């Protein structure tokens, strides 16, 4: 009887909430509740091997990480420079790829298929593929560079701080730029063709068309991709984990790898939790910016 008297709005509410309830409850249970646990661990001196010393220490872990811990600061610096170089490289290569696919009349299917390969391969396998190519003795890259006369002797890619960093950036770029290319291609396809035609009539050259039509129209999606990829780069884990393990001499240790090491090598849940809370806050701030800036105009 009562349900019949419900106004349509209340009915919609009941249906709506019961349909999203399973998803929301699952994410709350496996995602959100543990976050509070992590936060509470981060305020404790919590080392698994020293259960007697466990206790509340306030913000001590955070203060230690931000002011004294050289591993945290190194991994932060590595992550930032990694994000900077890899995201720029991915955007440039991805943009070229998107333009190629957009312009091409034949073979688009082939290129699009090729673009999906790196996306579909697990990061660990990508890392292993590239490690073999980067190998100083058996690697095909040294051989190619040697044959082209670019290098005179083998580069010990993964044993050298500088080259290991370069190798990680290149590997991640190969894995991630296809996503950038596909997103930008989708953006390019939304630009009405008439804009180019009328620009042609007005006598605008190709470069002028690119600057005044392509760039402004693709700017929103370019910014979305930039934000997405920056968040992705800040979370890099599997490629460094299996390619360099953070070495040599911590030159490729990233935030996530260092947090992982605190948890599962040092068994220091306090410091590891403080570190992952910091990572969580950084990512969430960026996500909120994304929602506020890019999705605010949604219905």
């Amino acid at each position, binding site marked *: 009887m009562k349900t019949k008297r419900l106004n349509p*709005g209340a009915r919609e*509410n009941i*249906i*709506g*909430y019961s*349909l*999203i309830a*399973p*998803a*929301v409850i*699952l*994410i709350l249970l496996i*995602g959100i*509740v*543990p976050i509070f*646990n*992590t936060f509470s*661990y981060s305020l404790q001196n919590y080392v698994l091997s020293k259960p007697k010393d466990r206790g509340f220490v306030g913000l001590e872990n955070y203060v230690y990480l931000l002011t004294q811990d050289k591993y945290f600061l190194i991994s932060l610096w590595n992550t930032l420079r990694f994000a900077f170089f890899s995201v720029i490289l991915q955007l440039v290569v991805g943009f*070229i790829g998107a333009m190629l696919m957009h312009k*091409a009349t034949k073979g688009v299917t*082939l*290129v699009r*298929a*090729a*673009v*999906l*390969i*790196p*996306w*579909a*391969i*697990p*990061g*660990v*396998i990508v890392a*292993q*593929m590239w490690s*073999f190519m980067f190998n100083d*003795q*058996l690697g095909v890259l040294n*051989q190619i560079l040697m044959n082209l006369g670019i290098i005179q002797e083998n580069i010990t890619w993964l044993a050298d701080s500088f080259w290991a960093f370069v190798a990680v950036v290149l590997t991640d770029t190969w894995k991630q730029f296809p996503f950038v290319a596909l*997103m930008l291609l*989708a*953006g390019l396809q939304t630009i009405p063709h008439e804009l180019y035609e009328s620009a042609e009539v007005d006598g605008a050259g190709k470069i002028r068309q690119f600057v005044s039509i392509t760039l402004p129209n693709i700017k929103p*999606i370019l910014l*979305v*991709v930039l934000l997405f990829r920056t968040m992705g780069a800040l979370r890099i*884990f599997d490629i460094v984990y*299996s390619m360099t393990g953070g070495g040599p001499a911590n030159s490729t240790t990233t935030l*996530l790898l260092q947090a*992982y090491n605190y*948890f*599962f090598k040092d068994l220091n*849940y306090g410091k590891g939790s403080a570190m*992952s*809370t910091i990572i*969580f806050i950084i990512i*969430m701030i960026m*996500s909120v910016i994304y*929602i506020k800036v890019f999705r605010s105009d949604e219905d």
Partner: protein
Amino acid sequence: MKKKIKIGKIFGLIFAVLFVAILVFPFYWQLISSFKDPEDLMMMPTEIWPSRFSLDFFKNVFSVHHFDTFLKNSIIVSGFSMLFSILVALPAAYAFTRIRFSGYKFWKNFMLLANMFPIIAVVTPLFVVFKKLHLVNTYAGLIIPTIVITLPLSIWTLVAFLGQIPYDLEQAAQIDGCTRLQAVCKVILPLMTPGLFSTAIIAFITAWNELMFSLVFVTKNEWRTVPVGITLFVGEFTVPWGDMAAASICATVPIVIVVLICQKQIVAGLTAGAVKG
């Protein structure tokens, strides 16, 4: 004028070939390395096209490294994570696109935030709880956390696909006497099939690629999934490059084939959420 166009076209072609070559070469290299004779793989200068083929590495993969166990684990974990995510995501995605309940915008953004979640922030508390519940070294212990990643992703992809289906169709069916549920089953689901399919593939691949959970929630090697399994190949003094190449070919070729067949839907699914039409 004509000459100019021709030069531009040639440059475009060279760029395109170079682009595809960079994309495909690492995969090609892995493929031929896995079929090389073990002796030839260690030979320098290396052969760009092998002079003889061998299946030795593939034999090692299954007889020495027991890769079939990792493959089986990965298929089970990714398959169930995908199925479960789709089942839970579909009603939620329907609610987000068709029903204007109060606070729907908040929960939609909540799902978007969940989609960007850094999983390192939940790994340890989950491990502590899983240990108490005896979920460490079980399939459930791998599937449950994987859902945190695949569920929001599935919701977002499905929302994008559902948004493309006109609401009028459903209303018309309801005017014709269908209930809402009938309208969904008879009108929306058939139209959704391609979208559902590509969401399933994207969710499966995302679960397949997941490394951290299999590292953390599993302590025995017989429960490891493919990404961790491959890292276990590395010996104390040697790296069996050929075996690893063969293993990664086993783990990626089936997926690459599916991806190539369904590339159109997958591209639509990957980009649909981000580009507002």
